[in-house]
């Protein structure tokens, strides 16, 4: 029964709270169908039964107090019960255990930065320990965003000038999708992040800056794409992944279409015209400069809106991104 209701209709159940949430949701679905069946069933039955009945056969019933009382009081009791149930689950959703791992989140148009206790900052990549409560303390740099992990059934607006928080405990390690759920402008739908729940050993490795022993999903995907050559992904593939995780593709397409900024396709070593009319060759230096100081040399026809990524991209990552852009002839 549960599988029938959930298959395809709900995201994965990632935590114990999500499990509780599912029960409540199931109840609501059942209740809705029950009432819908009563209302629509009765309606169709009456219409069918009394269609074209003679007007003289009409029984002019004006009211029935007992019946009315019944369908006032029963729903009242029902919704009160529903409120209590909803509130009980809600308490579990918002009150974080005191031993939760705290990770800070900053939303900005249109990416997520995650700041870890060890000082690491990752963009659009949230690494958390599995089976341990995690509390996210979030704020925004510009407009409203909303941090939403469907599998954990948690969501909270990220508000400038204010800290909001959510918590969850992922049951299993793996990749979970993160969305921005509050409309925040042009690339709202590109403001995605991946959450990776890793086991205790890897979490400690991550905190101490050592190499993880697990291969994160996105790398696995690219392995499959690289046609079974095995081993680590190529530099170009890494670069492609990075443009996704850093949020670049929210504004820069890889297929030649214009978004907020120019497309990567064919840009490398081409001559681009800048807003001041001068022309530059888009070589490694120019692209790197544009990533770190985006407002310095803006391509003609585009607004100077890109945030600086200085300090957010490691040298190795920069190399991979450049290699990737170079590959898009």
């Amino acid at each position, binding site marked *: 029964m549960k599988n029938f209701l959930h298959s395809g209709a709900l995201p994965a159940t990632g935590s114990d709270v999500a499990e509780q949430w599912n029960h409540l949701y199931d109840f609501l679905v059942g209740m809705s169908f029950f009432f819908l069946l009563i209302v629509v069933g009765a309606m169709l039955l009456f219409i069918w039964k009394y269609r074209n009945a003679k007007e003289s056969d009409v029984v002019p019933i004006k009211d029935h107090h007992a019946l009315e009382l019944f369908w006032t009081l029963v729903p009242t009791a029902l919704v009160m019960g529903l409120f209590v149930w909803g509130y009980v689950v809600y308490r579990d959703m918002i009150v974080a255990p005191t031993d939760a791992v705290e990770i*800070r989140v*900053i939303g900005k148009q249109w990416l997520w*930065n995650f*700041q870890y206790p060890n*000082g*690491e*900052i990752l963009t659009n990549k949230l690494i958390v320990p599995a089976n341990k409560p995690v509390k996210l303390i979030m*704020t925004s*740099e510009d407009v409203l965003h909303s941090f939403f992990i469907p599998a954990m059934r948690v969501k909270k607006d990220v508000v*400038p*000038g*204010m*800290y*909001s*928080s959510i918590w969850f405990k992922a049951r299993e390690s793996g990749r979970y999708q993160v969305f921005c759920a509050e409309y925040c402008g042009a690339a709202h739908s590109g403001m995605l992040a991946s959450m990776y729940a890793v086991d205790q050993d890897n979490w400690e490795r991550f905190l101490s800056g050592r190499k993880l022993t697990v291969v994160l999903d996105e790398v696995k995907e690219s392995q499959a794409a690289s046609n079974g050559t095995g081993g680590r992904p190529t530099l170009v593939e890494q670069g492609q992944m990075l443009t996704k995780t850093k949020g670049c593709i929210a504004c820069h397409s890889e297929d030649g279409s214009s978004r907020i900024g120019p497309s990567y396709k064919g840009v490398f070593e081409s001559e681009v015209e*800048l*807003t*001041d*009319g*001068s022309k530059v060759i888009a070589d490694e230096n120019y692209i790197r400069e544009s990533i770190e*100081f985006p*407002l*310095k040399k*803006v391509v003609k026809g585009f*607004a*100077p809106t890109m945030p*600086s990524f200085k*300090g*957010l991209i490691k040298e190795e990552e920069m190399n991979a991104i450049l290699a990737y852009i170079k590959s898009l002839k």
Partner: protein
Amino acid sequence: MSNHEGSHHHFILPVKTGTFIWITLMVLTVITVWIAQFNFGALNFAIAMLVATIKASLVAMFFMGLKYDKLENRVIFIASLIFFAIFMVLTFSDLAFRGAFRVQQPFFAESGSQPKFANPWKVTPELLAHGKAVFETNCVTCHGAQGKGDGPAGSAFNPRPRNFTEEPGWKNGRKPTQIFATLKNGLGSMPSFASLPLDDRWGVVHYVASLGPNTTVVTDADLKSVGVDPSGAVSAAAKTLPIDFAIERMATGN
């Protein structure tokens, strides 16, 4: 509509009653001001509101004639106040209980990443040179290399970017503190440059101020007005960690 017929007597407020109400209102106003001179703590607010409500009731009941009006009209007016109260109470059910998470927001307070220049509000030739360098990376696209507002990207904007070499037309004024505020908050199409380090910003401010005629100097009073304590690096106003500073630190990871 028989219920509307008949010779209903319009109530006419007698001049004598009106005069009495008027005098009472004047006296109550004087009382409000007088009481405000004493300090009863939280009670002051309650007293002020009580007196105001007495005055308002007098106006509504007599001048507006609600005391003698139809029930319907009385209900209408009182209902509007009830819904006002609902609005207030339910909004406060959020805001009065939100305190813990709120970030106190200083408006011009700056704070101390390790600056290259101490007290950057004091002009020095080195700071000016530094400001020129910062200007050339961040501002020339719109304001032009000479600061004449003729930068290449500037042509896209309406109004055009400020010409720094002219005296008139500065929306926020061209005292250094005022330029500083513009840098911090942005103006029209110009984005905020609050993310630049403090001394970078002051450098730009001095450089921009030096481009035009009649360079003004920063006085201690000016600095105070933007929340900078002239004697030290951090303003006393920044008792709590300012949010943009916090974000800056978080984003750069130090």
